[in-house]
């Protein structure tokens, strides 16, 4: 058993640069998808709470479809579908071909999927902000955009934090799925390293350990954020 561990540590040095690259790809993918998802989420929440029926219906279709279909199926559909659509668009418009590399495709896919989950979170959070706040802002003469940014949005983030945190944890683990559509993330790199060195289990356990560390780090950051900004949740959690 101990010689196995020693042997593993020895091969690890050889594969360290590759593994670090995989971790970096995973992090990039997760963070960029988070960004895109937040954008989609805000837009979706706005659409869901809009007075225009068409926006409400489209947003409802968006969230229902995405949350009702498994991530992997969506990834496969979007991965091939988006590229086909873009190719057709560029062909029709006469532009030069627009390349979408695997990382971009992964970010677009995950961002789009988790945008639906963030929509629900933001919607709940927006509704939790007392209406009186927005009304007071109006009474004080603030423009609608100012009222949104400084009053509603700022307070909404407090309520949204727990939901966003949970979704981030799920997103972090969902990045493991993109190895199935070919992106060289941590899981794929661990598999490649493990297969060529005949120590597959050790490398998989190492990948799991790295994910565990990332989850713990995220948890710590989220707890800090909640302590700093999450006044509402703390009151309810006595």
């Amino acid at each position: 058993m101990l010689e196995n561990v020693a042997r593993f540590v020895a091969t690890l040095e050889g594969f360290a640069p590759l593994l670090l690259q995989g971790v970096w790809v995973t992090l990039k993918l997760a963070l960029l998808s988070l960004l895109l998802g937040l954008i989609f989420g805000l837009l979706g929440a706005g659409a869901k709470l809009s007075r225009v029926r068409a926006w409400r219906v489209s947003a409802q279709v968006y969230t229902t479809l995405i949350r009702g279909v498994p991530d992997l199926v969506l990834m496969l559909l979007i991965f091939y579908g988006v590229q086909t659509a873009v190719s057709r668009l560029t062909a029709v418009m006469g532009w030069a071909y627009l390349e979408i590399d695997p990382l971009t495709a992964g970010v677009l896919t995950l961002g789009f999927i988790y945008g639906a989950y963030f929509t629900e979170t933001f919607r709940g959070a927006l509704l939790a902000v007392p209406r009186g706040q927005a009304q007071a802002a109006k009474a004080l003469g603030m423009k609608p955009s100012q009222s949104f940014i400084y009053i509603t949005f700022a307070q909404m983030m407090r309520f949204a934090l727990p939901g966003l945190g949970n979704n981030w944890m799920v997103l972090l683990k969902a990045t493991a799925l993109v190895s199935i559509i070919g992106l060289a993330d941590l899981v794929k790199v661990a598999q490649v390293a493990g297969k060529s060195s005949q120590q597959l289990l050790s490398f998989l356990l190492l990948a799991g350990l790295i994910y565990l560390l990332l989850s713990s780090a995220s948890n710590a950051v989220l707890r800090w954020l909640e302590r700093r900004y999450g006044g509402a949740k703390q009151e309810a959690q006595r």
Partner: protein
Amino acid sequence: MIELILEYWRPFLYSDGQQITGLAMTLWLTSASLCLGLLVALPLSIARVSTRSWVRWPVQGFTYLFRGTPLYVQLLVCYTGIYSLAAVREQPLLDAFFRDALNCTLLAFALNTGAYTTEILAGAIRSMPRGEVEAARALGFDGWKLYTYLIMPSALRRSLPYYSNEVIFMLHSTTLAFTATVPDVLKVARDANAATFLTFESFGIAAAMYLCITFALVGLFHLAEKRWLRFLDPSR
């Protein structure tokens, strides 16, 4: 599209002539994993809220491990990783167990959902009103009886909304089964795609099937909540 459906409706639904595939396999994976996970989670959740730290910590470690790592990694470890160990292959019982792809998949899924369900139930147990527990104690309920008649039924009810999320999550996670050669709906869709190259149609059918099952499950849980969580309904 029509030819696709005509040729693949049977594998998509229940069988490809050799083994159970498609919808039947997906439903089997989902329900078996959830049942096993629930069985595991019932005692573990009680341990999780125990005041004795030597009881609590192993369970906490278990849930920390399985909730902090991706299910895909867990599946890979169970399917390819464990079986690559000579020690496992030499032991006849272990060898027979891990040789079958379905066993490995169910093991990984059950452990994963067991960890999440443990946390859900533990949270529900903790959220039980103290007054009820004190009243039960005053009436002479203690230990085993207290849990069986009071705490667990209440915890199970309170966890329904969160558990419904977990059930949907498990359904969606079964799409990973094809990486361990278990033929579920997604695998049949990939087969159809490989044979006919109709990517959108093949995966679209799979997506539609998952959507229907999800709706059915959400509807079922709605009914369940209406029945069993009536006592918590604020509008009454």
